[in-house]
């Protein structure tokens, strides 16, 4: 890998031990992937919350902060493992709160803007076409690559920290145009309606591809996705298949036509995704019927539009006595949600708003044990996918059905 004079100096420690650690990590990863150089990035989204960093990650971050580490480019924090104002309502241990506080304090000392969001692209730092990024949330990466034509690999937690401290990333994978062309084509032959359908589409394609390097392209006929629907589709594709990019022909910037999406490769015969395929995803998360413990709108955090829509769909109805309805947003959406009166209306209906977190990072197995939760309903395939491993029996339903489940306390 070729390093310029400044990078060589950083490697020797001239910019301090934190930057030296950071560039050392990046060189090792870059060599693995055959990167020829390091390139500057426009922003960083750090994937760091105590549930995944553990105490060893916390120790590393505190050491870096203690060594005088400073970010070199605009750097944000991803969703954290609790709502700092409401963590005790979920019986999360005070040790988790204290450790998460220390972790975010360390990040702030390094110069991170503590946004605690996985949807920075909707409310903080929208990506631009061909902008190189170092983002550490997989759904955010898939969104940036796909819908904006920005360029990021998955920069996992330590890699996103390293990128913030150097302002650089190794140039491989999705930073290079040659890796951004489609190699599989799908044709959706059924109309898709609402975020749960789009989430199911992402899950289906993700599970079919199951490869980070593969870029699928999708032909749509009767559907025009909103940004929120694309968000759920791409988050699910990342969750189920480790996908970092997807072209939607005619809807995303590097795929105005199938030919553009495939570059020099002939456009293949598409594989059809029909209603039965989408329904199959729902059937995979059918739930067990009967009582519903939790209805969760999360993963990714909701936009203002999505959160307001839930309040409108409740129409003043109250959540069932033994059921909890949870909505997770970032602090930017929370502020508007409160200013516009939606937060009050949600609370009056018995719903709960959590800010700065996402339900699946909120020690979900511990929460389940504490409250005896089992039956969870959500329109997010990503959430359903993850919580299956935490002992829940997740059911995938449309937003309307989720709201109805919250009100009746019964799985529709």
């Amino acid at each position: 890998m070729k390093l310029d004079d400044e990078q060589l100096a950083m490697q020797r420690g001239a910019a301090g031990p934190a930057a030296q650690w950071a560039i050392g990590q990046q060189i090792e990863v870059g060599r693995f992937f055959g990167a020829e150089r390091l390139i500057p990035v426009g922003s960083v989204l750090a994937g760091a919350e105590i549930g995944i960093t553990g105490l060893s990650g916390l120790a590393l971050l505190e050491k870096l902060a203690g060594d005088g580490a400073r970010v070199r480019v605009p750097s944000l924090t991803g969703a954290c493992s609790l709502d700092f104002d409401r963590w005790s309502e979920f019986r999360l241990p005070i040790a988790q709160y204290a450790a998460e506080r220390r972790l975010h304090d360390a990040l702030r000392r390094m110069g991170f803007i503590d946004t605690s969001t996985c949807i920075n692209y909707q409310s903080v730092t929208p990506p631009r076409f061909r902008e190189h990024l170092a983002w550490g949330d997989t759904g955010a990466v898939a969104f940036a690559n796909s819908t904006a034509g920005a360029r990021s690999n998955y920069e996992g937690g330590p890699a996103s920290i390293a990128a913030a401290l150097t302002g650089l990333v190794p140039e491989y994978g999705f930073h290079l145009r040659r890796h951004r062309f489609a190699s599989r084509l799908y044709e959706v032959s059924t109309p898709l309606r609402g975020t749960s359908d789009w989430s199911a589409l992402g899950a289906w394609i993700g599970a079919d591809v199951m490869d980070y390097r593969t870029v699928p392209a999708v032909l749509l006929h009767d559907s025009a996705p909103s940004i929120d629907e694309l968000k759920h589709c791409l988050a699910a594709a990342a969750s189920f298949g480790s996908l970092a990019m997807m072209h939607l022909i005619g809807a995303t910037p590097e795929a105005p036509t199938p030919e553009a999406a495939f570059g020099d490769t002939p456009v293949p015969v598409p594989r059809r995704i029909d209603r039965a395929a989408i329904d199959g995803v729902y059937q995979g998360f059918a739930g067990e019927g009967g009582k519903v413990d939790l209805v969760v709108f999360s993963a990714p955090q909701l936009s203002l539009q999505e959160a307001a829509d839930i309040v409108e769909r409740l129409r003043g109805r109250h959540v069932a006595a033994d059921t909890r309805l949870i909505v997770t947003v970032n602090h930017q959406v929370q502020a508007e949600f409160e200013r516009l009166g939606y937060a009050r209306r949600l609370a009056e209906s018995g719903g709960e708003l959590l800010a700065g977190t996402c339900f699946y990072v909120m020690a979900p197995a511990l929460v389940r044990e504490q409250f005896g939760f089992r039956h969870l309903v959500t329109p997010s395939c990503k959430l359903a996918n993850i919580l299956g491993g935490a002992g829940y029996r997740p059911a995938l339903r449309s937003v309307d059905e989720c709201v109805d489940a919250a009100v009746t306390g019964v799985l529709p």
Partner: protein
Amino acid sequence: MPTIDHDIGGTGAAIECAAALGQPCEGRLLVSRHGFNARYDLDLGSGTFSRPGHDLYGRSLAGRIFVFAGPKGGIATSWALDALAQRKLAPLGLICQQVNPVLVQGAALAGIALLAGYAPEQAARLVDGARVRLDPQRRRIVMLA
């Protein structure tokens, strides 16, 4: 493309890989046919597989060379490998056909050997319990027994 070298050190056949990092190690294989994500599949407190239906459900990663299809899902694995390593619960090494950056970044942070990109027809030789040596510098999995 990865190829086989049958004359490695006189101890048996070796499998060549496309990419590798880390230090050499020796151990027994723990083999899964599933994808892997530390958050989705593991109880991070014990290092055992906790996802119902996983083919290694109830088994521990600690001290084994973990063979799996490839990474899946989010970024958790990038931190989790180091967290496991600090508590002596981490695998000695990792072998998979496909990688994503998160897995590589996590292995680099934790100092765990990673070899990736072997020929698919070699998968059948990587059987649970087999003893192997990982040689990242030469990008080779050496079959010992």
